[in-house]
């Protein structure tokens, strides 16, 4: 890449300059289109709900208020749903990452007799899966309906994640594991003491994938636990608001909403509740994402380049 900078002087023709300017303008527009909806949601969530109905809220709240957030967190169901979301993210990630790493270690050992069998058995399931109904019937058979563990058990091992970690372990110098064995460490101890600490970069990557997946998922809640409000998650609560307001908001004009807001004398409206929930549900990701972005990208390229 440094070679290019040497030749930079030569990029000076008119057409080159026009290309550059258009390119920068276009990419700036892309940034605006990507960020604007989030900023708009943020502004709506902090703006007085009845004032929002008048419209004209774009980038910044007109009448600042915490009312929307207070209202939502006073709804005990949503407060509880936030806790469940956090719990499934933490528990699910820890269990899944540890188990995936352990399995990846065993299939990375060249001398392991079951190595090929295990790998093929897992990779096969990337292409063939029973699908929705047999999966649902199994979960029902196992009595996991209406239980927290239905968020954890079915997804313990991610095959793609296992391949990412396996390739990483295979890239470690063989001598390290050999010397541990000569010192008398068993396979499990070698894994815990030697391999796990050395695999941290790969584990960080897959942790992020698993954690984001856990935090964002709503379909398992909808399918298995929709009758138990105490197991509901933030994303599912937002989904419920969305599906009730989708049809309503489409037909309900701003004037109707205004009237509804006035007559009920309530401090919140469906629009502002939805904006506030949207911000709460995406906030953890928006906050940690810029710092951890490089791990995401690394995982993507490790998995993508291998073929």
């Amino acid at each position, binding site marked *: 890449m440094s070679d290019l900078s040497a030749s930079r002087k030569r990029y000076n023709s008119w057409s080159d300059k026009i290309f550059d300017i258009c390119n920068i303008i276009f990419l700036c527009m892309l940034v605006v289109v990507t960020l604007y909806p989030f900023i708009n949601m943020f502004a709506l969530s902090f703006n007085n709900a009845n004032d929002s109905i008048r419209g004209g809220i774009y980038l910044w709240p007109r009448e600042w208020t915490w009312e929307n957030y207070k209202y939502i967190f006073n709804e005990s169901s949503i407060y509880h749903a936030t806790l469940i979301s956090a719990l499934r993210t933490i528990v699910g990630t820890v269990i899944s990452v540890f188990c995936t790493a352990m399995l990846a270690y065993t299939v990375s050992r060249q001398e392991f007799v079951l190595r090929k069998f295990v790998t093929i058995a897992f990779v096969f399931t990337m*292409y063939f899966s029973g699908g929705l109904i047999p999966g649902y019937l*199994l979960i029902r058979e196992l009595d996991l309906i209406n239980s927290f563990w239905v968020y954890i058990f079915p997804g313990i091992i991610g095959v793609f994640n296992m391949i990412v970690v396996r390739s990483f372990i295979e890239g470690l110098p063989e001598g390290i594991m050999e010397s541990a064995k000569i010192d008398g460490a068993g396979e499990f101890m070698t894994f815990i003491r030697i391999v796990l600490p050395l695999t941290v970069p790969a584990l960080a990557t897959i942790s992020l994938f698993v954690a984001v997946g856990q935090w964002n998922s709503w379909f398992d809640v909808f399918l298995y636990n929709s009758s138990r409000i105490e197991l509901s998650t933030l994303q599912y609560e937002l989904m419920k608001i969305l599906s009730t307001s989708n049809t309503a908001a489409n037909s309900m004009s701003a004037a109707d909403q205004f009237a509804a807001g006035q007559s009920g004398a309530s401090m919140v409206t469906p629009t502002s509740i939805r904006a506030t929930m949207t911000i709460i549900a995406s906030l953890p990701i928006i906050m940690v994402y810029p710092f951890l972005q490089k791990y995401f990208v690394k995982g993507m390229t490790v998995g993508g380049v291998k073929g």
Partner: protein
Amino acid sequence: MERTIINPAPVTAKKPARRGGGLQPFFRKLLQQRMLVLMSVPFLLWLFLFKYVPLWGWTIAFQKYRPAKAFNDQEWVGWANFKFLFQDETFYQVLRNTLVMSSIKLVLGFVTAITLAILLNELRNIVFKRVVQTISYLPHFISWVVAASIISTALAPEGIVNILLMKLNLIDQPVLWLGKGEYFWGILGASEVWKDVGWNTIVYLAAITTIDPSQYEAAEIDGASRFQRILHITLPGLKPVIIILLIMNLGHILEAGFEPQYLLGNGMTVDYSDNLDIFVLKYGMDMGNYSLATAAGMFKTVVSFVFLLSANTIAKRMGESRLF
């Protein structure tokens, strides 16, 4: 995806098998490696339970399944469920919707991601490039629920899209974007691009860095313009990646996604938004017709696999890199 490594198996070669059976060294080795076995067999059991038992569940596609009955008491009906499926007009409709939405996603996704990757690569200010990249990846990590909430707010009658279009005098009055079936495919395609275009550039950007810089220099000395360099060096350099991704995506042509269609679709758009997955969900979970829904799901998986194998074979014929 699987790397083939020929196992020299030197340990068994040293010890002659005593009682002729080839299995004995295998079991001896298994015993020696009992720790590794202990560390992997629990997950094999997990795999069997959660991934292979549901495959066995495909048998209910050939039954008139009644949840209350035991397996042996179920009534077997042969291909009746499939016959019913292929005579059902809704099935053809959801099949059409699935294929159209997948194709839009495939074509639009490829074109936009490759274009964006090339544009990013042409940037000379590294800091600006990093900022754009970081921001463009962001929507990939938010859930479809959040995305659907954002999209339906933007497309609402008093949403930003209608406001902008009215300011530009392109429309006279607000359009109910999510209330008309004809608009759904376009909205879905645009939403998918919004969410994933940045993320999809990663693979292409990684591939661009492997192109030899001296090629660009040589082209420049020969007087090639910016567009000519993109056309004759960058794009050919991306060809292997494009082909392997195309294969992978062709294998998933029947999986147009489920969440965006389910979350953005509504009663007014079902004729366009319902796809195979939603069909399975509606027949299976809402109407309790497990057998028919399983048949539809099974059809999807088998056809997908055939597509994947065919695409892989074509790539092999063309002498390109392939999946397996």
